[in-house]
């Protein structure tokens, strides 16, 4: 069976999967409806300062699993919904950034620099149209790169990397993530080490669950949802609540500026913006393909590169004074990260950002799909169901892009009112939602306490400038790292130097050391 056949099976899995309902005799596929619902929800969430895509994904996951169950049929509707949220939230983040000078998501900060001045000049709708055009372009480009590159990379990994090399690749990925996220390699390694230690509590091959202090509570290990949601979501909620407590930001009511003049985005505008969009899309895709480097850096680089070109051309208005090119450069860059971020997930099984973490969590909970190089086995005689799901996932992404190009703009422009929801009311509700969703999955109060405990850890890490993402990624990859290492050790006949005997593995280990040393030479500001 060739790859084209698998592409076709993936499309069929989406369109001929379970039906939601029939309209005038026409069946509406469940996956299609879920992508649309997730996408619209994502725009609403992104438009709400204080909420973020990962929060919505975290809250939605247990509900989705309750609705769809644990069968392989559940995978595509659940993935479709989560991918919809991921894409919609990136787009929605621009809304409050442009209308109220408040970025809905951290990566939309650079959008405020030109978006809000355009609003003040009475061109808010035009600014939103620029953001939508650039975001949809960057996102689509990134998805095409993902669909082309991920299978090839996965096939290369499966063909040329054996167990020692795979172990070394995991070490390299973790070292890279620890070094590049945030501004301090030392803090990145601390986050990584803590995440690995947490992953090893209550696990192991012996009858006695290691590091469990002899207690039944720790013998089961930490529930993955409690750790991920605790550190990523609850920690962020605690920090934001404290910001409100100390700064009383909520007392500021966003002010609207009267709008006037031509609000349309003309063909000539698009042609003028295209070079900025194209350059930023390439930058964002390249950054997104590397695990751990987030969309905020992509937006910053895209904006900086666009500003240099704009200054050279001498066009006005300048960047920072309401230039549509500034919005285009930022939005294309941050949106093109989301698709490319799935390259390491699908080809290597390594999550690169918070959204990818939730996709892995969904796959892990439902079962039947293990993201990694083994997914892309193009079997000749029997159908590889994981590969069908992978191409189904790509189909979902393209459907989300289609929705983005068609209804995304209008829906996004109608979401301005979301910025008015007071954060001090929203955040406690998000916390209650998150903790309830944990209890629904685990059905024990201990899980809620674990979540709060990891939330406190996430809060402390944020206050100390330690990025929580290496912690979460290390927690997820910890078991895989140990298992691959054990297998490699056994396969090499108990060779203690198995990581150094193969040239490729030795190269990966050397690169791990180099990336840490290079990061150490240039301490930067923290970018959390």
């Amino acid at each position, binding site marked *: 069976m060739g790859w084209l056949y698998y592409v076709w099976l993936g499309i069929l899995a989406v369109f001929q999967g379970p039906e939601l309902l029939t309209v005038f005799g026409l069946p509406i596929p469940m996956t299609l409806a879920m992508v649309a619902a997730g996408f619209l929800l994502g725009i609403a969430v992104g438009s709400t300062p204080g909420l973020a895509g990962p929060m919505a994904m975290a809250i939605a996951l247990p*509900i989705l699993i*309750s609705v769809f169950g644990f069968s392989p049929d559940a995978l595509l509707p659940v993935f479709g919904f989560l991918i919809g949220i991921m894409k919609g939230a990136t787009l929605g983040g621009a809304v409050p950034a442009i209308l109220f000078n408040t970025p809905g998501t951290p990566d939309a900060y650079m959008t405020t620099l030109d978006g809000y001045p355009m609003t003040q000049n009475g061109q808010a709708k035009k600014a939103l149209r620029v953001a939508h055009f650039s975001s949809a372009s960057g996102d689509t480009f990134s998805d095409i790169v993902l669909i082309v590159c991920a299978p090839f990379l996965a096939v290369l990994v499966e063909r040329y990397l054996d167990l020692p090399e795979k172990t070394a690749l995991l070490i390299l990925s973790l070292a890279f993530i*620890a070094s590049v996220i945030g*501004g*301090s*390699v*030392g*803090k990145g*390694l*601390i986050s*990584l*080490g803590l995440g*690995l*230690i947490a*992953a090893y509590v209550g696990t*192991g*091959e*012996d009858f006695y669950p*290691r*590091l*469990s202090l002899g207690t039944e509570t720790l013998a089961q290990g930490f529930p993955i949802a409690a750790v991920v949601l605790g550190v990523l979501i609850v920690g962020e909620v*605690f920090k934001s*609540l*404290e910001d409100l*407590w*100390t700064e*009383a930001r*909520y007392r500021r009511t966003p002010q609207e500026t009267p709008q006037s003049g031509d609000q349309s985005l003309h063909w000539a505008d698009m042609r003028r913006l295209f070079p900025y969009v194209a350059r930023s899309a390439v930058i964002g895709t390249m950054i997104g393909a590397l695990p751990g480097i987030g969309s905020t850096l992509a937006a910053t680089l895209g904006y900086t590169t666009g500003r240099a070109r704009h200054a050279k051309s001498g066009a006005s208005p300048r960047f920072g004074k309401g230039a549509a090119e500034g919005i285009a450069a930022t939005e294309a860059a941050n949106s093109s990260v989301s698709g490319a971020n799935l390259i390491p997930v699908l080809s290597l099984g390594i999550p690169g950002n918070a959204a990818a973490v939730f996709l892995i969590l969904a796959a892990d909970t439902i079962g039947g799909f293990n993201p990694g190089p083994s997914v892309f086995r193009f079997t000749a005689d029997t159908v590889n169901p994981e590969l069908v799901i992978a191409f189904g996932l790509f189909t979902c992404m393209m459907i989300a892009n289609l929705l983005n190009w068609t209804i995304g703009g209008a829906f996004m422009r109608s979401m301005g009112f979301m910025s008015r929801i007071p*954060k*001090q*009311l929203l955040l*406690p*509700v998000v*916390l*209650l*939602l998150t903790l*309830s969703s944990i*209890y*629904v999955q685990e*059905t*024990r*109060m201990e899980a*809620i*306490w674990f979540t*709060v405990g990891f939330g*406190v850890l996430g809060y402390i890490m944020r*206050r*100390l*400038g330690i990025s929580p993402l290496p912690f979460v990624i290390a927690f997820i990859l*910890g078991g895989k790292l*140990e298992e691959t*290492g054990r297998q490699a*050790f*056994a396969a090499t006949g*108990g060779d*203690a130097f198995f990581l150094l005997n193969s040239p490729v593995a030795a190269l990966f280990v050397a690169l791990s050391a180099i990336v840490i040393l290079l990061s*150490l030479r240039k*301490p*930067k*500001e923290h970018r959390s």
Partner: protein
Amino acid sequence: MRFDRANLALGLGCVALALLVALIWIPMDSTTGLIEKVRRRMTIGDALAPTLAAGFLLLGGMLLALAERPKTVRRLSLKNLAFLLMLIVILAVAFTLMRWLGPVLAGTLTEGGYRPLRDTVPWKYLGFLVGGTAMVAGLTALAERRMTWRGVLIGLAAALALIAVYDLPFDDLLLPPNGDV
């Protein structure tokens, strides 16, 4: 750029924690060592992976304490700790209400206690409704620095909405505390 005492303290604290984990916790709380011989074959023991994890922690702590000179320094202030304490107190009160209100009331008012009633209205919602409302109202009051009826009503509405989302459509999903009793 300069060394900062907060960074030095964090780095040294992590070094101490890593040594504690590697030299005391792991050896005392794992039944196999770093490398084991099982049926004349060498295998990796349960202690190796956590020891490597402690190694990452140690390396990170040492780099932070000795090598890095960050431009910005973050530290936990007393104000941070005070906020955290208030937050935990509010959550503890809310979780206590969530976990024990139903069982205590059922134990007082009925003969059979909470367990036979845990799938009946209003008992099965009592703890979640009161605890959830208290949590949202308490945290809103913390953020606003004053208790408001708006916070209470939002909390009540959120708890009711969650009951509608999780409990009404699904028989197999349990809200707190019904999985524990």
